[in-house]
């Protein structure tokens, strides 16, 4: 038996197919992951993401501490509730994890990091906090529900405490607000609009039930993966890890080089790679033949070299296979992928593949 979120019984009650995910018993789907995927693109779906790790960084030294720890710059977060997406790097510039950090107050930032990297991340943060005026508090008492889709916010708003709906609906993208004991953020991992709601674990089942009653469809990890892939969003452990830098992972945009005086862990190594040019890069692939791209398949770039598919799946919105691959930087716009003994043709594209429900490739 793996770890279970406060919503485990609800998932079982809704006929979820439960699978192990990084030591957690999580719903893969509730009948059809493809239907759940379409529900998010066209209407509203919800995900139990309570397995993710919420860490509160508090104290007068919080901004300075995070400014030296993260590749993106929390100094850009000047309004209460504003958030950014960033990598946390090793000294060599490799990615330890990707995460979102919210600025609540000068002395309070909230990080949401991956479930699978929880222990590693907490150990890393704990090591680097020495000498800083900061406390690190993990929040295992909190659960998290993501409501996503063009109708998700409207449907979820009807379930929020009176008066809270207006504040939540007024949120701009990548901003969060507190509504009683809920922390509502206009963020997500699907490429659709929506909220990620952090809430007390003992309120999660009630909210999940009221969201379902409001017509938001429960969706599992299977749909979560096809949605994020269509949206061109990386998955830690597949698309990047400690052996790859953000520049090799299509995450150069998350590095704040300015101000130049801000030193952060991994900066020196990244500067060198930026100057010399990274030899590999992460690109999107659209398979042109019948088949499905999957992680670890070999990519052949004629006259240039080889690479590897890092994430692959079938895109329900496009009706064909898409993927991300780490390839030589000199790749053109075509390549071959070795799938089940055959070399299939793939077109190199720039993600996202789908945005706000529409094909972009």
């Amino acid at each position, binding site marked *: 038996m793996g770890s279970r979120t406060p919503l485990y019984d609800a998932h079982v009650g809704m006929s979820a197919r439960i699978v192990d995910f990084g030591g957690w018993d999580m719903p893969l*789907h509730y009948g059809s992951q493809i239907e759940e995927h379409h529900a998010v693109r066209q209407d509203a779906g919800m995900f139990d993401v309570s397995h993710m790790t919420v860490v509160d960084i508090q104290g007068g030294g919080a901004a300075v501490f995070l400014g030296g720890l993260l590749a993106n710059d929390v100094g850009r977060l000047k309004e209460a509730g504003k958030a950014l997406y960033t990598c946390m790097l090793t000294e060599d510039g490799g990615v330890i994890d990707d995460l979102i950090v919210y600025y609540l107050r000068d002395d309070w930032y909230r990080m949401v990091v991956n479930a699978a990297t929880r222990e590693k991340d907490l150990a890393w943060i704990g090591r680097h906090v020495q000498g800083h005026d900061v406390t690190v508090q993990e929040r295992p008492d909190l659960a998290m529900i993501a409501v996503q889709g063009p109708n998700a916010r409207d449907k979820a708003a009807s379930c929020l405490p009176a008066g809270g709906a207006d504040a939540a609906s007024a949120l701009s993208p990548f901003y969060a607000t507190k509504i009683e004991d809920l922390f509502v953020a206009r963020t997500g991992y699907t490429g659709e609009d929506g909220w990620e709601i952090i809430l007390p674990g003992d309120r999660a089942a009630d909210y999940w039930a009221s969201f379902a009653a409001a017509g938001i469809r429960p969706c599992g990890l*299977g749909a979560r993966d096809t949605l994020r892939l269509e949206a061109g969003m990386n998955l830690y452990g597949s698309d990047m890890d400690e052996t790859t830098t953000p520049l090799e992972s299509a995450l150069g945009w998350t590095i704040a080089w300015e101000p130049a005086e801000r030193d952060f862990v991994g900066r020196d190594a990244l500067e060198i790679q930026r100057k010399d040019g990274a030899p590999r890069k992460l690109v999107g692939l659209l398979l042109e033949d019948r088949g*499905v791209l999957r992680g670890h398949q070999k990519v052949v770039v004629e006259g240039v070299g080889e690479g590897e598919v890092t994430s692959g799946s079938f895109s329900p919105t496009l009706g064909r296979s898409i993927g991300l691959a780490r390839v030589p930087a000199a790749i053109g716009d075509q390549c071959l992928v070795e799938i089940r003994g055959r070399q299939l043709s793939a077109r190199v594209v720039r993600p996202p593949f789908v945005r706000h429900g529409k094909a972009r490739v």
Partner: protein
Amino acid sequence: MSEVPGDLKYTKSHEWVRLEEDGTATVGISDHAQAALGDLVFVDAPEVGTALSAGDACAVVESVKAASDVYSPVAGEVIEANEQLADSPELVNQEPYAGGWLMKLKLTDVSALDTLMDAATYEGTLDD
């Protein structure tokens, strides 16, 4: 608990066979198999006229999760493949024993069906 119709024969690799009134056999994959695979996105059906021995890999069903070979339960010749599956592979998930059939065979030897598992025996091998 997956569905296991009583009038069919089954293999260890989760194919089912139905002997039709005209002596041909219809073949598909079981409810247990389709649930394990998840939503199918491609089905590569065998070509009509192909001669198969029992155990030959004759089709591929590919889901979002993985690709899986389908093995012919008995020897025979493929006389028909389900063309609907090209556009609607989800039929295998929705109706594994009806609209989701994969192929029809002209049997080399109808008594070969006796070597396959009956419903009760197959059900006993499943742990769902």
